[in-house]
């Protein structure tokens, strides 16, 4: 690794992304926006407030976090796996002065950037649903980026273990979808029975959803330091593991 060498890989991915900009945006944003519409508007109209928020407002910040997760995780699974196997892009890159560390950082930072972009677009779309974020939302952006790094790294871990595309079904069905449903986006985790609550609170998306809600509305009711430190640690571990596994796969 040599400073910002990984940037060349980020630029390569950006160059490709520019060509298919519309397809990737719709792919990443379609789902969270539809959920916001169906659950928030359709279901939420007749529901009581949750934690003092109308249901649509309650779920909106969590859906922003989920947009980041989906976008980042899909980029470093299907996208990265294609570059690793079919296209031999990594092989070509490793014949240049760039090394495995540059490659991993480039892919993860790229995935996180795409995730952040998806989150930002979701946030920008919220006023259309009558949700106006507080100025604190600016502080949410680095949180979303770190979360993007975490899920990119998780995707890359899957990629370095995958034998074919079907392998990613395990990841989406057993990891991503449960996180989407049980990380406190759609119901408050705090009011669950203690053992269940404990489990849900250590899911990696849960602190991000809470932070998202806190910073979106500037309502600092609960401690945030632990959530930030925990997310950073988890991200560090995931990046390290992705690096270890991908190196093992690339260098015999």
């Amino acid at each position, binding site marked *: 690794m*040599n400073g910002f*060498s990984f940037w*060349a*890989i980020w*630029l*390569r991915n950006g*160059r*490709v992304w520019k*060509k298919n900009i519309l397809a990737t945006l719709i792919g990443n944003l379609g789902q969270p926006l539809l959920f916001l519409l169906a659950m928030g508007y359709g279901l939420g109209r007749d529901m009581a407030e949750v934690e003092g928020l109308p249901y649509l407002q309650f779920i909106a910040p969590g859906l922003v976090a989920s947009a980041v997760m989906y976008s980042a995780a899909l980029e470093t699974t299907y996208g990265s796996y294609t570059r690793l196997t079919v*296209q*031999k*892009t990594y*092989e*070509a*890159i*490793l*014949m*240049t*002065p*760039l*090394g495995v560390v540059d490659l991993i950082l480039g892919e993860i930072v790229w995935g996180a950037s795409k995730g952040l972009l998806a989150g930002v677009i979701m946030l920008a779309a919220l006023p259309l649903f009558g949700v106006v974020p507080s100025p604190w939302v600016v502080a949410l952006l680095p949180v979303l980026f770190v979360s993007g790094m975490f899920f990119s790294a998780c995707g890359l871990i899957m990629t370095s273990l995958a034998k074919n595309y079907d392998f990613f079904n395990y990841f989406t069905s057993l990891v991503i979808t449960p996180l989407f449903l049980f990380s406190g986006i759609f119901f408050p985790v705090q009011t669950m029975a203690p053992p269940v609550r404990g489990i849900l609170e250590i899911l990696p998306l849960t602190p991000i959803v809470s932070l998202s809600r806190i910073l979106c509305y500037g309502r600092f009711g609960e401690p945030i330091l632990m959530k930030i430190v925990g997310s950073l640690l988890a991200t560090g571990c995931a990046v390290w593991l992705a690096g270890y596994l991908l190196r093992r796969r*690339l*260098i*015999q």
Partner: protein
Amino acid sequence: MREEQGIGYSGAMIQATFQQEPAPVFPASQSVVSVTGLTKRFGERLVVDNISFDIQRGQCVGFLGPNGAGKTTCINMLLGLVEKSAGEIRIFGLEAPRFHREIKARIGVVPQADSLDPDLSVEENLRTYAGYFRIPRRLARTRVEELLHFFALHNRRDEIIEHLSGGQRRRLLLARALINEPQLLILDEPTIGLDPQARYLIWERLAILQAQGTTMLLTSHYLEEVSRLSQQVLILDHGQVVVQGEPQQLITDMVGVEVFEVDGTPAELDALEASFTQCHATLERVGDKLYVYAREDCSRLVKVLGEARNWLRRPANLEDLFIQLTGRSLRET
């Protein structure tokens, strides 16, 4: 698809621009590549077994061997894509893998498998690759332009990779390998699967690069290609160096001067074998064919052969040497 060749490229432009920068700084006598005792084990399997060789500056070394002989593993160890189990590698005098970043900045690689970026156009492929070498944008633009012309790809600059012919892809791979003006070019089967026209065009370009002093390591199963381009060959088999030297010298020393290939029934060939003892030659029977590797001028045998049904007399070549050293049986890995 028609290959655009014979564009009338003189070599002058690329020569002028490719030599702007001062020559690499290392003593003339020093080897560009120096490998000692290189060994690779995959578990129990010994793939590369204590190999040593040197590549001198400006030389093209042909790296030959049947499938599974260890050629690609060896190249991948030079590039750091495979970790060596033992031995020492020095490239440009720098120890690998410790200085891989510095080393790879000065190497160009044409891989056997097409690794062009299908998401990008011809020109974008070159520009992106220049980015991996941190070549400044403006310089990269000039080099991309030169390389597109040098490899007759300038009319296809915006084409997506999928629409290129096999020959055009190979030329683009070669152009990509030259983006950093490498002092060492590693060519792994550079003309595999190409028609003769496309191959000649690549050989011609490689000859120009060689004339400019680029050091090359070439692997190929087309032994004619190797004879054409290499001053030195190194034949590997079962992970070991079987022979190493100047190709014509090796052929003369180990195979002979010329070869007679004779068809006939076993009885006819038996009879011929007896009469061939009057000439200094090695004989080999393969099915209904007799090969006579003559160590001296055996013109007097022509009279004897006149009676055989079908025969051919030709100079001994690299293929004879290769077969003699590595056998005729198929290698499947």
